């Protein structure tokens, strides 16, 4: 190449710079910069604090199991919400889609009848299908109809919850196969780990890897980081958004199925704030509402901080209402950290 002589100086300097770069940025620098590690440390700190305050009651297998079981369904919602928020979107419909899917799955299992795995699989398929359907509607409204995600999913939130009530007349459906309740709902792997917790963590692991290591995940980050640049790179932004909202919907459907399995009823009135809880968890976990930044690991921490606070306050005899106060403060701190990080970079 004719420019070889021009390149000599930069080539000669390049190794030095690379070494400087390594020194300036050791392997742990990325960890320190990542918000999810700090949030993880806060979670560990909370657990240690409550353990010291109430070693007998807080530190027990049974209590750990309680906390994890309470958090399991929310974790499944938060995984989908993480993908959506990374695209700089929001999904307010998750709790309503959960209820809708749970109601139709229960109705379906009731109609099929019986108490076998076949019936349960029918219920699961209905729940996933309902969730996927609502997710596709959300995705279409956001990507194609260009309605803002906030309004689009607020609309489907009302529609899904309303339709669930229309179908049931507002009465919870409790005709749930006992086999489902006794296995997935309240059974334990090896007699120790609740199946709900196992399923939630498998979901978090699978989709955490999908987000961090695959082309689908990379394009999700790209859409949230710079939509126009992603489009110019030849990626179909519309299709990516459609897939992400469909994924969040399907996971809400799964969460609905798990919720029915756990409570043996549809709990129609119990999910009005699931959307806000899942958004809170995702944002506490370091995922940026501006898009382009986030991780499933952070969302796992973000789900468990409120859960541990709730449990710890009850055990230490603090009014549990303080949990909402504390979670609100953590949320604001998390967003402030994100702002600081962005400002420092500019």
């Amino acid at each position, binding site marked *: 190449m004719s420019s070889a002589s021009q*390149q000599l100086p930069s080539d000669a300097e*390049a190794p030095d710079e690379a070494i*400087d*770069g390594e020194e300036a940025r050791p392997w742990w620098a990325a960890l320190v910069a990542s918000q999810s590690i700090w949030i993880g440390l806060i979670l560990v700190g909370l657990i240690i604090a409550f353990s010291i305050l109430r070693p007998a009651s807080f530190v027990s297998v049974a209590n750990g199991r309680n906390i994890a079981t309470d958090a399991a369904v929310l974790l499944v919602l938060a995984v989908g919400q993480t993908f959506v928020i990374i695209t700089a979107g929001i999904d307010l419909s998750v709790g309503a889609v959960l209820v809708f899917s749970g109601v139709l799955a229960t109705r379906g299992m009731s109609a099929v009848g019986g108490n076998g795995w076949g019936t349960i699989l029918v219920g699961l398929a209905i729940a996933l299908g309902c969730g996927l359907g609502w997710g596709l509607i959300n995705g279409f409204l956001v990507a194609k109809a260009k309605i803002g995600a906030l309004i689009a999913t607020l609309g489907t939130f009302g529609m899904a919850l309303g339709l669930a009530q229309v179908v049931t007349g507002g009465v919870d459906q409790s005709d749930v196969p006992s086999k489902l309740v006794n296995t997935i709902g309240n059974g334990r792997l090896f007699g120790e780990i609740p199946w709900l917790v196992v399923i939630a963590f498998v979901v978090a692991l699978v989709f955490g890897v999908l987000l961090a290591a*695959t082309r689908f995940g990379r394009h999700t*980050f790209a859409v949230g980081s710079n939509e*126009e640049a992603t489009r110019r790179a030849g990626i179909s932004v519309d299709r990516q958004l459609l897939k992400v909202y469909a994924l969040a919907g399907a996971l809400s459907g799964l969460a609905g199925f798990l919720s029915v399995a756990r409570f043996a009823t549809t709990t129609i009135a119990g999910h009005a704030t699931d959307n806000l809880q899942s958004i809170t968890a995702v944002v506490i976990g370091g995922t940026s509402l501006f898009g382009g*930044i986030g991780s499933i690991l952070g969302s796992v921490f973000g789900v468990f901080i409120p859960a541990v606070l709730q449990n710890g306050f009850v055990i230490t005899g603090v009014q549990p209402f303080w949990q909402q106060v504390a979670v609100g403060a953590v949320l604001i701190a998390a967003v402030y950290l994100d702002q600081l990080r962005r400002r420092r970079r500019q």
Partner: protein
Amino acid sequence: MSEPILEARGIVKSFGRVRALRGASFTVEAGEVVALVGDNGAGKSTLVKTLAGVHQPDAGEIRFAGETVTLESPVAARQLGIEVVYQDLALAAELDPAGNLYLGQEILRSGVLGRLGFIDKPEMRRRADASFADLGVRIQDTGSPVATMSGGQRQGIAVCRAVTWASKVVFMDEPTAALGVVQTRNVLDLIKRVRDRGIAVVLISHNMPEVLEVADRIEVLRLGERVARFTRDQATLEQIIGAMTGAIRHEEETAR
């Protein structure tokens, strides 16, 4: 003389009642730096977007390596080896340089994992680092997001990405507009290195000393038409400004 690599003949493009291009012509020879200059509103951006497949011309002909082509989309232009570095650079700020270089064309891992869509980050990073070194783009830490980098580095990444995928022509829209003295120098050197690889560079710029330094030829657009062509040896600042403002006109009137 061989066929130009890219040529526009009599391009007409209107937006509503505004006639942005009124029979504009433009020629790019293989392996040269050609500056496209003109006053604001002369139609430079429209012409570039037409040649990049973003706009479809109302009339006129686009020829690529001697053959008439239809650039129905940016993807079609890209497949011919034509890339554009837009003024806004179009980088995903939260991704690292390698992620931006390979955005939309990610390298997948081999075997089953690759079929499942797993991307090969180390390989992309290695190749990206090699590209940056090759073009003399200096990036200390290629693992950090583009958002942490300077304007000059971002420009370098955007140019590097374009050159990685462009085999024939790279358009650069005001690449030095937002840069300091040293960074501008780096980008101008970068333009020369790209040309030395045999890739034609079209430089859109308002900075005449810069144009006179790096461009092999200069084409002047005024009111949607090409009004003058200079080689670097012929061109003087007065002549270029004269052509831009309408005082000098070399080209024949084309179809209105």
